[in-house]
């Protein structure tokens, strides 16, 4: 996390969940900038199905925190039009899995108007959406799909893994003059009703601060294996890295934090050092993030790799409901461990 805005207490001692950190970022921006508003399904009195807006209605009232009908095409487009006219909407797509009912608004309008207008029209907005599985929500409620959004031009794609970044990236996203897809994994939110990674509670400075979009963070420095990952998988990777550290295997874990822009430098610098590349991705395996990382290395210098790279990802399979099946599909700590052992054997 880089603090570029206000001066911040160097070490934050207060801990928040990712959800609370995100909401704090939103609230501070709503306070600062009256053009910011939030809308989506159940973002009002419910406070967001995944607590992404808890307390905002009470604080800012129904004029600035709006429950919408289940009409994603209408309200995604509404966000775009309002942004064009100088507002800064934050709009929630409850689950990313629902993108198909409103994708035209997202990728043909939100994402392209700036270009089509030759730069004359700006579309500053944040599209907030929940991603990820692991709790048996089935094939239509468990996907990550960041590869889908990153493939289409004109959209920034931000994916925080922890509370500190979540707040900083949220503030940066709101201040960004472009449409930013902000994807939060349900498993890092620190929800009381879902198994959560312990790191979903973390230190969060009280002040406003920006975390730059497009810079990866080194979640764990290391010299033997580069693990490129993001979102909840960062934590599985860290867990696996800790485990193999006992055997003297020193993994570097890169938390991408955003796919667009993608921090090529961080990836290449690390792979140049380690020669071993593991991509851990909860999105589908093929034609997505893991391929892109491979291409970045392959088009820069394939001799950087001392061993074949390994992809630990969801298979190209709809996400199954039964726990046995879902956990066979997910990029778990155990699958990462096995991959580390294989790539260093």
């Amino acid at each position, binding site marked *: 996390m880089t603090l570029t805005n206000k001066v911040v207490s160097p070490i934050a001692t207060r801990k928040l969940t990712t959800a609370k950190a995100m909401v704090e970022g939103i609230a501070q921006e709503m306070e600062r900038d009256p053009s910011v508003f939030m809308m989506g399904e159940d973002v009002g009195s419910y406070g967001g199905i995944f607590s992404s807006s808890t307390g905002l209605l009470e604080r800012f009232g129904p004029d600035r925190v709006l429950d919408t009908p289940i009409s994603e095409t209408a309200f995604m487009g509404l966000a775009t039009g309002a942004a064009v006219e100088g507002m800064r909407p934050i709009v929630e797509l409850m689950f990313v899995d629902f993108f198909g*009912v409103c994708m035209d608004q997202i990728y043909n309008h939100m994402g392209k108007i700036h270009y089509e207008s030759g730069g004359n029209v700006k579309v500053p907005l944040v599209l907030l959406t929940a991603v990820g599985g692991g709790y048996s929500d089935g*094939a*239509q409620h468990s996907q990550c799909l960041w590869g889908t959004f990153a493939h289409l031009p004109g959209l920034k794609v931000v994916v925080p893994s922890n509370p500190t970044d979540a707040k900083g990236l949220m503030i940066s996203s709101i201040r960004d003059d472009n449409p930013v897809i902000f994807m939060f994994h349900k498993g890092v939110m620190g929800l009381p009703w879902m*198994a959560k990674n312990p790191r979903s509670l973390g230190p969060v400075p009280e002040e406003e601060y920006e975390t730059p979009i497009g810079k990866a963070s080194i979640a764990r420095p290391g010299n033997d294996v580069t693990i490129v990952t993001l979102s909840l998988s960062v934590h599985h990777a860290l867990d696996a890295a800790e485990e193999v550290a006992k055997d003297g295997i020193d993994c570097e874990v890169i938390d991408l934090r955003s796919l667009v822009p993608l921090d090529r430098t961080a990836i290449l610098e690390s792979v140049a050092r380690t020669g071993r590349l593991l991509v851990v991705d909860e999105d589908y395996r093929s034609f997505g993030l893991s391929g892109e990382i491979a291409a970045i290395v392959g088009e820069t210098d394939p001799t950087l790799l001392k061993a074949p790279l390994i992809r630990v990802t969801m298979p190209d399979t709809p996400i*199954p*409901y039964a*726990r046995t099946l879902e956990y066979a599909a997910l990029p778990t700590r155990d699958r990462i461990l096995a991959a580390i052992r294989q790539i260093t054997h």
Partner: protein
Amino acid sequence: MDKQTKLGLYQIMVLSRTFEEAILRDYHADKTPNWDIGAGLIPGEMHLSAGQEPVAAGICAHLTSDDAITATHRPHHLAIAHGVDLNKLAAEIFGRETGFGRGRGGHMHIFDPATHFSCSGIIAEGFPPALGQAFAFQRQNKKAVAVAVTGEGAANQGAFHESLNLASLWKLPIVFVVEDNDWAISVPRHSSTAISSNAQRALGYGIPGTRVEDNSVEEVWAQAKVAIERARSGGGPSLIEVHTVRLLGHFEGDAQAYRDDLEGLNGRDPIPLYAAQLTQEGILDAELIGKIASDAKGRVERAFDFAKASPMPSADNVSQYVFA
């Protein structure tokens, strides 16, 4: 409406409720101490239909297993009233290899080719495939009809509009049903649309529309009879909206802090209300009520036993069934 029909409606409502009570029990049994939605024998989101049984009972009474019905994320009452195999239904909910989807689907993704039952977790997006079933029936010269169900919240989704228009244009044998339970998760109907009845919208597609107030199973039955006969005889689609009631949270775990109609909610439970009416009419008595309850209980527990005794899918086969 004869006595047998009334009894049948009551029985199916009780069976559905009994099934969901068993889910409730087993769903919550093993999620503590720290309530975890992903834990337990039945993990994941759980949307119960308790209160909405009159819709299912009243509609499905007119269908056979040759007819298709498409439900939503809240599918149990419709599945049960349509007569799907209870064992396979329970097994799917428990994520077992013997379930309708061999554990791949879960409770929002129940597909039963034998009764043409299906559902979808995406709002209103069950309508378009239902059009296709109706289209196939029409082209295959079958007398079958399709029924497509959504909530009132879903009626504001684009798929609703496109589906009604196309069905009307091609005179498809389909009946659209809107379950208006006042709520779309936490959003009350009046915050999602300015209109008070989707029957009004039906006119905008040139099809008949009607709204049933008071969650009356007999009124649903009567309206469904007209609509389904119309569809079956080539008269094209209709729309029926039913003002029903969601007795529980949107899903299990929903604290319902937003909800301003909790008071007196139990008084709106359609099952005791219908029992009282049928008792009054001399069709039911305490003994029969007890027998219906215990029959239902027996069937449900057998299905749940079957489910729990069934094998979990093997992790090795996670990528089976992606392609045929």
